[in-house]
């Protein structure tokens, strides 16, 4: 459920941030073998599921083994992209010093390159979350997901465009950091664009080759079945990740910020923005794992480099802190949040509504950075 967040003064926001920092410290100090065991167990599950899926697709016959094989392969792709890849690349396991879990070296089973993702997501989206003009994840530059975005006639098509994006989501993610829109707006030269695109094109080529030539060829007579199974598994992963990610930032009640509002934000205000720019999904332990714990988008945005499996135990504490500072905590069932996102995309395809009035923050006399609080050294 959503409640409107109270506007906090900088002092209040900093006190709020310090409480979250204390929570962060507490969890950091407690990290240990259990966290490592968790991620290794998920890696084990994903690898076994992939092996089972491939064996069923390659050597099975008939529809039952096809459905089972495709599901197992889809499950492994979801686990690998979400709980494993996304979280490792965030640096959630860098503290283990295990090279297999190193954020800067990991690459995931997705057409998006690890490097592009680290730049567009870990850096840009997580630093400038929901700042119009700075966070390119707000509607990915072509969807209108907030009334603050000016309406254009092209937005009339967005229900269809959004549905197509769901089907081909990994391609949208993969092309995101290439800034195609800037090419059309002549903000980057074709040469720059080509340079940017090269790693993506290379990786996408290998991925296509792997899924639709290499593995099918290994299956000999079963080649069409394997290629189709791979397509469905990739598609399942696309739909699932799309739904989860859209529920994280686009349901009703999530707000966007202007650059002026965030011009010299303190660390506490950065936390407030992360909270008000994100929304959670409620569900069982397995739902959380399958979303890579992005169902705890609020906690993820506050603590993007803490092991995500810790978010469920942090959430009640975060929620309690939010309540004390009069901050809304946007959460709901998967159906509710997804329904809200779909409704919003449909509604915002038409002009209006007028953005809700927000109290502008008073520009403080003293500069701060999101690294420090006002009084901190």
């Amino acid at each position, binding site marked *: 459920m959503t409640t409107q967040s109270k506007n906090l003064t900088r002092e209040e926001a900093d006190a709020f941030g310090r409480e979250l920092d204390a929570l962060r410290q507490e969890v*950091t100090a407690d990290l240990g073998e*259990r966290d490592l065991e968790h991620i290794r167990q998920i890696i084990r599950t994903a*690898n076994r599921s992939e092996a089972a899926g491939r064996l069923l697709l390659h050597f099975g016959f008939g529809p039952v083994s096809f459905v089972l094989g495709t599901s197992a392969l889809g499950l492994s792709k979801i686990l690998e992209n979400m709980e494993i890849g996304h979280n490792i690349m965030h*640096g959630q396991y860098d503290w283990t*010093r295990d090279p297999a879990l190193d954020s800067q070296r990991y690459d995931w089973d997705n057409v998006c390159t690890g490097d592009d993702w*680290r730049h567009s997501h870990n850096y840009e989206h*997580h630093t400038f979350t929901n700042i119009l003009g700075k966070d390119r994840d707000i509607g990915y530059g072509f969807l209108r997901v907030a009334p603050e975005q000016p309406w254009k006639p092209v937005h009339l098509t967005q229900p269809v465009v959004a549905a197509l994006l769901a089907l081909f989501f990994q391609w949208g993610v993969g092309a995101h950091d290439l800034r195609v829109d800037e090419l059309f707006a002549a903000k980057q030269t074709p040469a720059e664009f080509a340079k940017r695109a090269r790693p993506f094109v290379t990786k996408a080529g290998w991925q296509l080759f*792997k899924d639709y030539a290499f593995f099918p060829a290994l299956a000999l007579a079963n080649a069409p079945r394997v290629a189709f199974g791979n397509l469905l598994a990739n598609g399942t992963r696309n739909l699932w990740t799309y739904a989860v990610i859209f529920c994280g930032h686009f349901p009703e009640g999530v707000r966007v910020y202007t650059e002026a509002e965030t011009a010299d934000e303190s660390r506490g205000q950065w936390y407030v923005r992360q909270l008000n720019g994100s929304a959670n999904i409620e569900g069982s332990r397995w739902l959380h794992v399958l979303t890579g714990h992005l169902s705890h988008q609020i906690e993820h945005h506050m603590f993007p480099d803490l092991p995500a499996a810790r978010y469920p135990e942090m959430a009640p504490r975060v929620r309690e802190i939010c309540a004390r500072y009069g901050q809304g905590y946007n959460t709901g069932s998967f159906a509710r949040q997804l329904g809200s996102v779909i409704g919003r995309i449909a509604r915002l395809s038409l002009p209006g509504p007028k953005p809700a009035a927000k109290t502008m923050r008073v520009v403080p006399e003293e500069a701060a*950075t999101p690294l420090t609080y006002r009084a901190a050294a």
Partner: protein
Amino acid sequence: MISIQEIGTGWRSAGSVVARRFLLDRQAEFWMGELDPARSLGEIRARVVAVVEETEDTKTFVLRPNAAWQGHRAGQYSPVEVEVDGVRVRRCYSISSPPGEALVSITVKRVPGGRVSTWLHEHTRSGDILRLGTAAGDFVLPAATPEKLLLLSGGSGITPVMSMLRDLAARDAIHDVVFVHHARSRADVIFGEELSELTARHAGLRLVLCLDDEPSAPRGFEEARFANLVPDFAKRSTFLCGPGPLMDRAERLWESVGASDLLERESFAPTIAPAPMVSSVEGVQVRLARSDRAVAAKGQGTLLEQLERAGERPAHGCRIGICHSCKCRKQTGTVQNLVTGEVSSEPDQEIQLCISVPRSDLRLDL
């Protein structure tokens, strides 16, 4: 002409590129580990086949390394990596077994407060897997065994010289060896029994134990007693390993008689003591190992800001510690994390430049 071997190497490297592009390399590593945890495509792993209690505070871990292990020379050490509370920590230990055997031993004294030695003592059992590094070190017997040898050690410093003695014994090359070892008491002599056996078996081996608890004996290394026990020490090729004070005194003695070039030494305590912490960043030297440049810190600011002010352009992103793009290996020195307050002074730790401030001179892998 292209040889068969070159074709083989070519195929293998092409195969590894394809495996990496298909993301199958990590799966291959995973399944290999599932079938046998000691196997790996890249890592040197070893299965612990026995744990021997040598003394009250010292254990020998007998290891069977996988095929990636390339052997060692007598006197060398190997990096040993364990997971302590989920964190990989690495220490170097001298190998105490002789070269050329399928089993490799490290002998570890439990150091009070030592993370790795304590972990090995308390948690490592037969059947466990340890990760090793390539054996290294110049403290080795020369290819041609010197005519007259002196092996001089103290405490757990006995481990590399024991490997040498065992090597000589295995090759039946003990002609004229004096083995002088210092310990607190007879019960603290690591490999005591084996040393006695070797002495009984080899006429060319003389064993001298200097024990602190003997009546009217000096504690540790003492020049007069030593010169008395081994009058021709200055003419012997000497291999020295032990605690710092012992090594320092012995070294001065060798210097005083002009025999330093016959003395080889190995210190098992860290040679680089953590640099003293400074509260002000000003004037701290940041060495960039890869580009071979140095930057002097000026005024306030994080390492990232200091480097940028000096014209360096290290990779970075968010500048607030969340995206890990600026992660880099700190080879030596002490830094403090501004967000957590945590101080890192161990060598070879990953740090985030954008939220770290230097607390001593540093060397970064940049």
